């Protein structure tokens, strides 16, 4: 009975999140427009400027659009993770977070369910993006579209956990602009999403180090390899450990006796 309770609650939370996403058409469209603009405009412009050597998982010379696609998938998940944290701050301000927090289930489980729900939404977005990219001639082997699913789940969970952690620190919705400037942009630009590591190294050793240890880079590499049917064990372990660390910190952040909630005077 206890297990059934957990299952029903988790499904209820996931269903609510998916339903909200599907019915909020503007959110759906804006989540797609961002990476598509990067793909159609930015990547097309950069194609001529940037020469790419053959590096794994690619076996031939590739167009810049092909290189940037896993990075844009990561971008979708990064924004979605932050969007979920934004919605948690909103829910907290509006009070609906309280309904979740007073139900008779452990907080870690409720937060994990919220995280899974957010990840489910980001996976949906990624597959729609990949479908559009297919028609733009960015095509991976068909197995890649299956292998990418577990990679997306892990990277989505890791980025969502980061968002969750941030949301436990953010007191008001207005502070979210800071997250954009201090988390999303640095994480995205200091990563392998736009340029390979060796290319970054050519310009700055410091940037190279930052990009290398940036968990977002590892998530992007995990996705990149999975899309070509390959398993990048280093990226997998790095992303998994980052997820565990962010999640544990978020659970502490939402714990009434240890975390930020009491100090902030709100839940």
């Amino acid at each position, binding site marked *: 009975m206890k297990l059934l309770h*957990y299952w029903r*609650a988790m499904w*209820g939370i996931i269903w*609510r999140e998916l339903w*909200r996403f599907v019915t909020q058409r503007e959110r759906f469209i804006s989540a797609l427009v961002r990476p598509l603009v990067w793909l159609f405009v930015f990547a097309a412009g950069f194609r001529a400027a940037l020469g790419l050597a053959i590096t794994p998982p690619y076996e031939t010379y590739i167009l810049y659009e092909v290189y940037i696609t896993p990075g844009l998938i990561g971008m979708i998940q990064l924004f979605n993770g932050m969007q979920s944290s934004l919605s948690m701050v909103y829910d907290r301000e509006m009070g*609906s977070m*309280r309904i979740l927090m007073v139900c008779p289930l452990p907080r870690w489980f409720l937060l994990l369910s919220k995280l899974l729900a957010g990840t489910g939404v980001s996976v949906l977005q990624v597959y729609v993006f990949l479908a559009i990219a297919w028609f733009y001639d960015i095509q991976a082997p068909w197995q890649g579209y299956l292998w990418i699913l577990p990679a997306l789940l892990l990277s989505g969970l890791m980025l969502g956990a980061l968002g969750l952690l941030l949301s436990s620190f953010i007191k008001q919705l207005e502070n979210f602009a800071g997250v954009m400037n201090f988390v999303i942009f640095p994480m995205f630009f200091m990563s392998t999403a736009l340029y390979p590591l060796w290319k970054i190294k050519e310009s700055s050793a410091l940037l190279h180090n930052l990009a290398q240890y940036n968990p977002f880079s590892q998530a992007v590499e995990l996705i990149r390899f999975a899309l070509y049917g390959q398993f990048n064990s280093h990226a997998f372990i790095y992303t998994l450990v980052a997820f565990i660390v962010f999640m544990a910190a978020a659970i502490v952040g939402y714990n009434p006796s240890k975390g930020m909630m009491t100090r902030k005077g709100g*839940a």
Partner: protein
Amino acid sequence: MNSSIALSVEDLSFSYGDKKALSQVNFKIQPGECTVLLGPNGAGKSTLFSLITRLYDTRDGRIELCGFDIKRQTLPALAKLGVVFQQTTLDMDLSVMQNLRYHTSLHGMGRKQAEQRIQQELERLNMYDRRFERARQLNGGHRRRVEIARALLHKPSVLLLDEPTVGLDVPSRLAIVEYVHQLAAEENLAVLWASHLIDEIYPDDHLIVLHKGQVKANGTVDDVLKITNTLTIKDAFYSLTQGEQV
């Protein structure tokens, strides 16, 4: 463990940094009893509710719900609790039915049982015909009714209402006050109703006056009138809070 006590608060204190919000608060609520927690703004009512619902941690003192310590036996304690918060907590983009189903899933109820309970609670409040409307389409009074129905779906033993009638027109307010009193009597439910509106108190109610984080009076309406040597609750409140407006 005393099962005849639905809610017990013992020596409860709470501070925000150096600012004391609650100081040595003590009271007990029996099943079937409607207790009004009366206090001006800033008295500590919402802090007390946040502690009872475990949104804040209880550091000094003890809270028990139906014999379960909220700090050590959090999950069984929360299972006994139904809450209506001061702010509306409905998801405006979902229908009434979807909002209520979400709550039943959080409480682990199966589809059939959930449908049955939703129908029962909405029918009691004359809201069943509106179950497919979005929460956004409902007026304030109807939203409150849905929130009360939602708080009762899992058959709690204790119902907390944090100023649930704020912002409602007089007929909606009176209807909700009457319904909750009726619930306490018929369902043997222990009700704790935070309010700053004196006309929401019935003569048989239990009354707790909270002022600057301290319980100034705790008893039946008659007890409070006797202690303060006054004839009306308004005068009693005035004397207990040294002239502060309700």
